């Protein structure tokens, strides 16, 4: 099996699953229970939070554990917008957000918020100038995806964060779901107030994630209930998932050094191979792109057909993002980048993880080239 759909989800690491199982068995008590068993679970939770904070270079009470990227994005965007609606009702995002961020903004529009969707250039990037010009007196929130999940474009979030630091009343949320472990991001002191991360993108089980909330930032909770997670996220904590995710995060960040250069090399190999194929167009930009995502179109071949053709060879890639791949039609992100509609409807995404090997990529390149030649000859 050659699994190249790591931006959809990754395979959990065995040692991370060990932690999940042992914590489930050993620390099963509710961290909020008063007895000694509860206090042990609380301790485990505290340690997990501490380690997560250390790894991200932030304070313990700035970490809120969530169920994943979708919840993180919703809690950040809607939680901030509702908490600060009395200051103003203008919010800013981009046209290339992940569905969870994008649709949270659509919902805010229904609630009477005024949303600016920033355009992107051909490489998928927003310009800092556009952000500056979009800011109004009543702007309360800017939310931008760090690494785009379909094409891998890196947005200038550090630059935007620095600029936004001079506005006391504007919060800045970064969707870091695809970026974590792949494109370093400094949180503390960088103008970023909120940042969402999802566990299953870095070999943790599904249903895990965290949201960084800078000290002093208020959020209106999505769930009503108990006072867990500093009153921001009610519901009994998913302690096994939390511990497993924090461990996966540690392993990921520890290993990132030895893998990032390697992933970049693998991506370059694919680029070199596909750029010279007359039937193919690579959409992932040359500059400002994450090392683990490559998005391309094989002209004239529907993306579903390609996905299934590769599947026959036990190779797994995806059409745009998993979260919107069943909707059909052209990719919103590619359209925003100015890719023609037919090409945008035929794109596939290849996404790597630290586990991807060079041999796998070489096999993939050969197989794709072969499949394309075959399909083209049938269609002719």
């Amino acid at each position, binding site marked *: 099996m050659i699994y190249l759909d790591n931006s959809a989800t990754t395979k959990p690491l065995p040692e991370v699953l060990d*932690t999940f199982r*042992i*914590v489930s068995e*050993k620390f099963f008590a509710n961290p909020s229970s*008063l*007895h*000694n068993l509860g*206090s*042990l679970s*609380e*301790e*485990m939770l505290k*340690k*997990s939070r501490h*380690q997560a904070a*250390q790894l991200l*270079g932030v304070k*313990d*009470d700035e970490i809120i554990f969530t169920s994943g990227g979708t919840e993180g994005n919703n809690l950040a965007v809607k939680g901030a917008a509702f908490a600060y609606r009395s200051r103003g009702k203008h919010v800013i995002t981009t046209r290339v957000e992940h569905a969870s961020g994008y649709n949270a903004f659509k919902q805010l529009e229904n609630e009477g918020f005024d949303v600016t969707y920033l355009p992107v250039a051909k490489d998928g990037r927003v310009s800092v100038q556009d952000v500056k010009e979009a800011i109004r007196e009543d702007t309360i929130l800017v939310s931008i995806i760090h690494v785009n999940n379909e094409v891998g474009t890196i947005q200038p979030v*550090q630059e935007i964060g620095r600029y936004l630091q001079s506005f006391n009343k504007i919060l800045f949320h970064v969707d870091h779901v695809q970026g974590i472990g792949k494109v370093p991001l*400094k949180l503390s002191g*960088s103008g970023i107030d909120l940042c969402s991360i999802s566990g299953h993108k870095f070999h943790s089980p599904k249903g895990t994630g965290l949201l960084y909330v800078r000290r002093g930032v208020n959020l209106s909770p999505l769930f009503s209930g108990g006072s867990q997670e500093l009153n921001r996220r009610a519901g009994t904590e998913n302690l096994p998932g939390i*511990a497993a995710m*924090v*461990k996966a995060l*540690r392993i990921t960040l520890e290993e990132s*050094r030895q893998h990032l250069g390697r992933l970049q090399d693998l991506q370059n190999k694919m680029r070199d191979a596909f750029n010279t194929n007359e039937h193919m167009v690579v959409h992932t930009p040359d500059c400002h792109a994450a090392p683990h995502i490559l998005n391309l179109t094989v002209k004239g071949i529907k993306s579903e057909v390609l996905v299934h053709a590769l599947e026959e060879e036990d190779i797994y890639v995806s059409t745009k993002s998993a979260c919107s791949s069943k909707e059909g039609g052209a990719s919103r992100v590619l359209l925003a980048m100015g890719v023609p509609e037919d090409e945008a409807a035929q794109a596939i995404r290849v996404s790597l993880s630290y586990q991807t090997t060079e041999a796998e990529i070489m096999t993939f390149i050969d197989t794709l080239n072969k499949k394309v030649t075959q399909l083209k000859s049938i269609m002719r």
Partner: protein
Amino acid sequence: MIYDYLIVRFGELTLKGKNRSKFIDRLYLTVKEKLKPFKQLKLKKHFDDIEVQLNGEPMQQVTDVLTKIFGIQTIRAAIKVENNIESMKKGALDIIESYEDGIKTFKISAKRKNKRFPMGSDEINRSLGAHILTNTENIKVDVHNPDINLRVEVMEHETRIYGKDFKGAGGLPAGSSGKVLLMLSGGIDSPVAGYLMQKRGAIVEAVHFHSPPYTNERARQKVIDLTEKLSSFGSQVKLHIVPFTNIQLQIRDKMPDNYRMTMMRRMMLRIAEKLAEKRGALAIATGESLGQVASQTLESMNTINEVTNLPVLRPLLTMDKVEIIDIAQKIDTYDISIRPYEDCCTLFLPSAPKTKPNREHANKFEAEFPIDALIQEALDGVETIDIREQSDKTLMDELL
């Protein structure tokens, strides 16, 4: 920016004359112990500093550990480059560009220890300075008051360029001043007092009075967490937990309401004294601040202190609450201290304890009180916790 070295420079040690090498040895041991989790590090002890080779370990996390260790004045991060001017230029520019918050002025201070290097220090200064000026915008040279002073050291086989400086914790190395017994309640003040004692080189052991079932498991855990936090500033802090329920019940039943607090403190201090003698501590430390609460008036101190002959050190004596809270927040004990679990200090106390007790009355009330028996009973029940030996905690760490 990936740094190759951290150079750890000593503080007040330079003043210590003949004892200097003993101090340095202690500091070196502490540094070595604290940095154990970073497997790739290599440490070297020099006359003026300790050299930490990072070998790929995360600089920020190593620095976070080092900035907590007492006896360290500054920590300087450095990169190594080859002994040729082109590598030096590249390294210097990399460092300048790594300052995200933007610097406006700089200067270069080159030192040529390796005299065979073909350029003189001035020549190196000019060459590197020019390279930075031509490759950056909005940065100027200022030799008198620069935002950063980029130090360059040409050594035998490599050149070091120093980038970021981190301020150390100051003070004296752990263990250079002997042992004290800290009375640790779980409140905001006593951990700060312990921290300040550690700052001056004392080895701290803590004593906590626990009154189950009136005080619960979480109150106990809170004190363990505080002890662990304190351990991160010096050597491992041992914690002695004294069963105090019976003494409190006896005081409740036999002492006048308004003297209960005074009596309780006298009993605590007697037990602490015995424990200190047993543990080889030469003094007792508390988090008292003059006049803060009823037990901390001069009259109370005078009456309570009567029962011991050991020095009672009160490093917070003249501090205001806000100053104490500032330190508690800085050393990360504040959030633990404010966890809302009752400790024994507030148990069975009247709403208005006596603020001006006196020795004469106290002695009179105690005349019939079975002091020695109660103390012995408490001492027999002392539980000593060595944080490292807690198996659940170890398991938790391994799981993460």
